[in-house]
């Protein structure tokens, strides 16, 4: 497995190049001095400065951030509840249907999710804007949150919750004082995942949005149609940075939590022997 061959090295290099050269180019060109996107004119951070002057893009960024925070919070609350129902309630009539319905958006084409959202908002006469985007994003990222939290709940000793109730804690107190602190790492990584998904979504947002609620990906897409400016490169670079950070923190916190849990389990096993 560890043997080095030129074939392996080449295929890895080609694979990574295929994936990351476009992104790398974008990042490099965001530091381009020249006004022409495709012509290199030396290093500069001037487009980041220009960006700070561009109210349209700044507004869009602010909307995106707000949408992401609110929708991921909503998604995590709903997703955690769904996960608890799926793991804790045992068998109830319609359980399979329920779990199927929760996880369907994972594989649903975004266009369909977006279109059906739009139809719903029109049908109930909801004015499209900030909140419709939030609702749409919460809907599709909730299933991701449910998957993440569910995994943690499955290897959670149920008698810990029973012990809390036995000692006089009501179900709500038990959840807040025992269950939530124990599943907290997975709830945080679920939030970060939902946040990242909301941040870079274009398709669903364009269906659900209305006047005054243009998100950054939408803004970029519409500007690109008029011609790519170096500003777009700069804002894209910032977004790549944010998303990468979010994914890294999420995976790191999940990994650390599972490592700690493994250590705890090992300590318990060693103690029992």
């Amino acid at each position, binding site marked *: 497995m560890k043997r080095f061959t030129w074939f392996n090295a080449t295929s890895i290099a080609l694979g990574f190049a295929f994936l990351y050269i476009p992104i790398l180019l974008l990042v490099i060109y965001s530091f381009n001095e020249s006004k022409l996107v495709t012509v290199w004119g030396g290093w500069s951070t001037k487009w980041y400065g220009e960006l700070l002057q561009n109210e349209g893009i700044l507004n869009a960024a602010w909307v995106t951030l707000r949408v992401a925070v609110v929708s991921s919070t909503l998604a995590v609350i709903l997703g955690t509840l769904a996960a608890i129902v799926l793991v804790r309630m045992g068998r109830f009539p319609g359980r399979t249907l329920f779990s199927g319905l929760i996880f369907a958006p994972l594989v649903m084409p975004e266009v369909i999710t977006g279109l059906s959202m739009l139809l719903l908002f029109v049908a109930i006469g909801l004015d499209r804007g900030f909140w419709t985007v939030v609702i749409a994003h919460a809907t599709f990222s909730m299933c991701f949150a449910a998957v993440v939290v569910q995994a943690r709940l499955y290897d959670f000793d149920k008698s810990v919750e029973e012990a809390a109730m036995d000692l*006089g804690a009501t179900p709500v107190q038990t959840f807040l004082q025992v269950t939530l602190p124990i599943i907290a790492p997975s709830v945080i990584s679920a939030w970060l995942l939902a946040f990242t998904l909301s941040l870079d979504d274009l398709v669903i947002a364009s269906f659900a949005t209305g006047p005054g609620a243009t998100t950054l990906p939408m803004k970029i897409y519409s500007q690109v149609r008029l011609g790519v400016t170096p500003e777009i490169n700069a804002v894209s670079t910032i977004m790549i940075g944010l998303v990468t950070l979010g994914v890294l923190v999420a995976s790191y916190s999940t990994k650390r939590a599972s490592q700690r849990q493994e250590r705890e389990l090992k300590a318990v096993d060693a103690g029992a022997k």
Partner: protein
Amino acid sequence: MSGAPAQSMSTSAAPGAGRATARTPAPLTGFAPWKDPSKRPIVRFENVVKRFGDFVAVKDCTLDIYEREFFALLGPSGCGKTTLLRMLAGFEKPTSGRILVAGQDITELAPYERPVNMMFQSYALFPHMTVEQNIGFGLKQEGMPKDQIGQRVEEAMSMLELTRFGKRKPHQLSGGQQQRVALARAIAKKPRIVLLDEPLGALDKRLRQTAQFELMGIQERTGTTFIIVTHDQEEAMTVSSRIAVMDHGEFVQIATPGDIYEAPNSRYVANFIGDVNLLEGKVVKVSDGFAEIDWGGGLARFKAVAPEGCASDQTVWLALRPEKIHIDFDKPTDASNAVAGKVVDVGYLGSISHYHVELANGQRVKALRTNSSRLVDRPISWEDKVWLEWPPETGIVVTR
């Protein structure tokens, strides 16, 4: 099936001296509230039934447990003992029947409204809290002032020698320490009843014996009623004032450890507790409270105390503990039960020796002898022809 449990050995008469054994042993202490009609039980199960779908986990159980008792529910896994305990804690609801604590019907109460605390088999410690926070958790839920919580936690920790570990998290403790934290947490609220679900199952044998005596000490000092679920008969014999032996969701016998051992009411109980010979036979006649039993194969009939409702022609079993059989080379004179056999197996354990003796009808009987003198002229050995003898009072005739 080698060797009777240590505890049962000491409650019964010395092995080999079957003649001296009384029919019903005197209770070890004067504590016997179940015999006092004026005493009210602290826990009462009234015709409790629990079904899970088609499976009946508990079949119509009625049981009284009294204040300060250390009561054991004993049986193999799946016999319903844990379900019974969980119904008392409030985690399962009886399908029918009632559960009363101190006269109050608690069947409908939620777990957090019941005056009982439980120690879990997995300990179920809160992994994100320190030992102190774990022990103080129940008191905090009660809304007790902080300084009082600290005092009570301190008290519980010193009782279980945990003071040094107060600031540690559960994963930084050994199994034995975790077990003590779980116990401290269950007694911290000073509940009237403490439930223990296989509390020592995860400990190794040596640690378990120490922990058993610790449990008894804590129970005595706090004066609390303890109800323990276990599948370990030695553990039940050691710690409890009374044992309920369960099988398939029913109580087979509820009695003191001494009675369970010396007067089992069925083959199941006799077999479950300690080592026993079960000799099948037919009752020939009953007179003066003694039954004459024919066990076929041309062997002499034997005499035993007849159980109530014992009639002629009934198939019965004589439950005879190995240590109550006298084994010797010479035919005993003037013995009501004596049978000859050949030694087929000898197990020398130092303090005692086991003998497996084959009778003329092919049946094998286990007998036990203490090695009271260091040098014996001629020890009993393989292929020796020996006589087994036991007084009519030592065996128990069971009809089921």
